[in-house]
């Protein structure tokens, strides 16, 4: 059993769940709003092709939640419009 946060709310998930699947299990269907029309969106294809399930995960925006496995203590927030870009260095390897 994994516990992570979505918008400050505790979500219970199974170890192998993707973030998107865990949210769906909780009845949460929307993870963001679009940049163009401010429309709510959520997982559509669950296979990394539609880019609709984006959310901010542990400070990194634009994450495809259907492709990322949940981790204990993870903080996920809904992404409003364009992602935020954390300041600081390039993060290059």
């Amino acid at each position, binding site marked *: 059993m994994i516990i992570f946060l979505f918008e400050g709310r505790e979500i219970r998930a*199974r170890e*192998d*769940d*993707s973030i998107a*699947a*865990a949210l*769906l*299990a909780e009845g949460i*269907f*929307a993870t963001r709003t*679009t940049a*163009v*029309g401010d*429309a*709510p*969106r*959520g*997982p*559509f*294809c*669950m*296979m*990394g*092709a*539609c*880019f*609709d399930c984006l959310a901010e995960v542990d400070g990194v925006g634009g994450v495809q939640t*259907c*492709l990322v*496995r949940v981790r204990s203590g993870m903080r996920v927030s809904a992404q409003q419009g364009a992602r935020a870009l954390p300041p600081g260095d*390039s*993060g*290059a*390897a």
Partner: protein
Amino acid sequence: MNFDLVIVGAGPAGLGAALEARARGLSVLLLDENEAPGGRVWQAQERREPHDRDDAFALETIAKFRASSAVAHLGATVWAIEDNIVFWSEAGAARSAGAMCVLLATGTTERPLPIPGWTLPGVMTVGAAQIALKTSGLVPAGATWIAGQGPLLLLYAVQALRAGGKIAGILDLSAADAPRRALVHMPGALRTPALLGRGLAWRGRIIRASVPWLHASELRALGDGALREITFRAEGRERREPADLLLLHNGVVPSVQITRALGCEHAWDAAQRCWKPVTNEWGETSLRHILVAGDGAGVGGWQAAGLSGRIAALGAAGALGRIDIAMRDAAAKPLRAMHARALAIRPFLDTLYAPRPPTLDDSTIVCRCEEVTAARIREAVDLGCLGLNQLKAFTRCGMGPCQGRMCGLAAAEVMAAARNVSVAEIEPYRLRFPTKPLTLGELASLESAAA
């Protein structure tokens, strides 16, 4: 790192190819963006209880692969193939490997089914629901409707019911005369009676579960910020039903992102209303060292996919001189016979579930990423846009991160109808690498690596 054969995709075709190639002494690298092998149809197979012989075969194949000495990189997303080098992202780092031959076994994507309101949270594809079921055991709860056509729709409904899920109703959007037209292909279907029988059994299961099955049209998804209800036309009247979840499916089409970016030749499949890479009997594309196997070369089901993977591996072994031509052909012969048999039911299925030209309201969104409606696309045609590339320039349709995966075929259908030409005449999106996003930091790291 250099390999004889780099395989992209660890589904039935990729795994079949990997095992065959290893058996012939080729060095093999297998890349898949999922964390475990299996692709879509055998997704999370190792974590699930096997129900039938097909599941057992899947587990056996995956186990054999794990035991083979093929090198596997999982969680690896390929974003470019250039000359003989394959580039991918793994754990946020850019990696590459050399390949004498590259086999693309990337399968299919779902054919778009744009309806009014399809971008509302609560509307997903049947494939998405199946992934959620296979990987996380999620079953539909609340008022769940399934709409569209195709074998996957039936299969999912059965799987969901078996897992204890509830389905409020199934809306069949196929053409009313499709079963009649499909009957002419029944002899082919009867060559694999087990497959045919299974399809009928699925139908029976759904009927016995008292799930309403309606022939419908004019489906709309409605809600403010999330799906609340659907409307449709069935049995001659308008219906309105509460809905928490709407699952759409309109068949699957070959995933051509990588073959397009490579510049391989493609041909239009008029019956399936989709593009396919042109391949010869060994899976070779118009680029000699690029091979395609499985549903990505043409939808044929998982049994055919595994066999085509093996055939392509034999072809590669022959091309690399690891097996002489006579032995290659002799080994391929029985595989081809089995492949043909596995495909025998296709004409029947393809006719039964023939994709129909969509009729889109002006206000229906076609490009989900950039929120471009059918009206805007029609306007672009009025301004002289002939194909998807001018369309992209005039409307931003296709410029989002999905690179046209979700919208390409639908946008082409809208343009073709507006121009009154066949969809084949609509120039598709010109694609370039990277075919999947990666960070500038990752890309930049390749420069210092090369320096």
